[in-house]
């Protein structure tokens, strides 16, 4: 009510020029606010409006705590216990092949260029053979061990560290128990199987196998 009154009193017209309008507008706004503050009902309404408006402001200003995302761990690997060593089954050597130092001496001259071998011809390399060859994994000096990309030695019983250099996600899954198989007790001690126990390191892809017999059709159960 008082707003209308004030407008009539000040007599501002809509035909005023822009600059004067702005000037007049700001003073008009000031007058209006003054009117609101003076009228109890309008004051109340203003307080309510400010209060309602303040709530989202409040939330916006509060430090954001993100709800723990179920999928957070998919982006970042969970802080799992990574052991220095894993209890593994013995490496699956071919018969009488180990220790290799029985034939290979550390002082032997080694041709480090990839070439076709005269011995070990039963091994057919089907493991990124375009880019890799034997000495990328087998140590040229000490044949009783393997080596990482930077040359650090790796025991055959820890060959997963070597495989994990290229197959990182697989290694992490293996450590968590998801990849491969663990034998033992679901609630107690478990023994891992080395990568090489299931995947021949020279030809890791599984060969198709013959399935066991299909179930008897129910029509034939008499």
């Amino acid at each position, binding site marked *: 009510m008082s707003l209308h009154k004030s407008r009539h009193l000040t007599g501002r017209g809509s035909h005023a020029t822009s600059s004067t309008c702005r000037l007049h507008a700001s003073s008009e706004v000031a007058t209006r606010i003054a009117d609101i503050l003076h009228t109890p009902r309008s004051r109340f309404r203003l307080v309510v409006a400010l209060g309602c408006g303040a709530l989202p402001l409040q939330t916006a200003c509060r430090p954001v705590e993100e709800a723990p995302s179920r999928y957070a761990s998919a982006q970042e690997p969970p802080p799992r216990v990574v052991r220095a060593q894993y209890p593994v089954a013995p490496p699956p050597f071919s018969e009488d092949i180990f220790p290799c130092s029985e034939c290979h001496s550390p002082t032997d001259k080694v041709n480090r260029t990839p070439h076709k071998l005269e011995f070990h011809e039963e091994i057919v390399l089907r493991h990124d053979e375009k880019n890799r060859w034997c000495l990328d994994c087998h140590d040229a000096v000490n044949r009783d061990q393997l080596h990482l990309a930077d040359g650090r030695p790796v025991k055959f019983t820890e060959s997963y560290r070597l495989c994990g250099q290229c197959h990182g996600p697989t290694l992490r899954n293996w450590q968590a128990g998801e990849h491969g*198989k663990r034998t033992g007790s679901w609630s107690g001690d478990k023994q891992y199987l080395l990568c090489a126990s*299931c995947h021949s390191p020279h030809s890791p892809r599984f060969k198709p*196998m013959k399935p066991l*017999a299909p179930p008897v059709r129910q029509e034939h*159960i008499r």
Partner: protein
Amino acid sequence: MRSLPVLPMPAPEPPTAARYSRREVVVMGLFALAATAAESGCAVDKRALDAFVQQHFRDLSPEELKQRLAQMEKRYTEEYGKNVRVSATPPIPGVLYGYALDLSRCIGCRKCVYACVDENNQSRDPQTHWITVLEMDKEHGVDLLRANAFYDHETVPAPGKFYMPVQCQQCDNPPCVKVCPVEATWREPDGIVVIDYDWCIGCRCCVTACPYGARHFNWTKPGLPADQVNPNTEYLGNRPRPRGVVEKCTFCIQRVRNGRYPACVEICPVGARKFGNLLDPEGEIRYIIENKRVFILKEELNTQPKFFYYYGL
């Protein structure tokens, strides 16, 4: 994963003072009528009488249970020649079994099917398999109407196909438990759905209700050759079943309650099967559920199974 309450085992009823309770006497009277109907062979002998008035597993007192187990061991040892042991291992508290299966790895070799048959004393003739391996096209994905359980190739995996083994999913909201008219099947505190083979009446309501085809009925006396019997048996699990009752996968209850893996998990040559305690935050099952894209079969039916399929690769 919400933590589930661990229910205590129900307290067994104390044994009555009399040799047979009043209820048993009434039932024996009925037995006198029913004894003319074949199954007991018309011989009203003590053993048949005891079998007839046999109470529900959960109503047996510890003494009655021990007696019952001893009777069974004697009977099975006589029948199969081996020293068969029957135990009734209680559930481990604080454990809820979960199973995960990697569909990208299963090659459909069926080694799990037959390992289960050997471990769980299933009938060879007529043949009973607790695990069904379904072959489906990669092109159409998981579409059960196109599934084939009877594939027989020279080698597996066949090109363009993937394999999905199905067995009892040990649901948390099992439709089979809901429909059983006599409570012969129930869900144990550790999550395994079990059957009391001596209480089941063979109505096959549960076989009809199971959405996963996991329950199997003994249409005749199971054909279990004596030389293939697994003598370590469990009352609610792999003991030789009588005819006319329903059976199903129990996650190898006789193994898991003693800390071992189920037979199918151990035999899988490609490591597609994973098993563990869902309540253990460090176990591989929790790792899989939290990090892999798991799904469950027929989720819209709200059976809440504990068998999770995923694609690991």
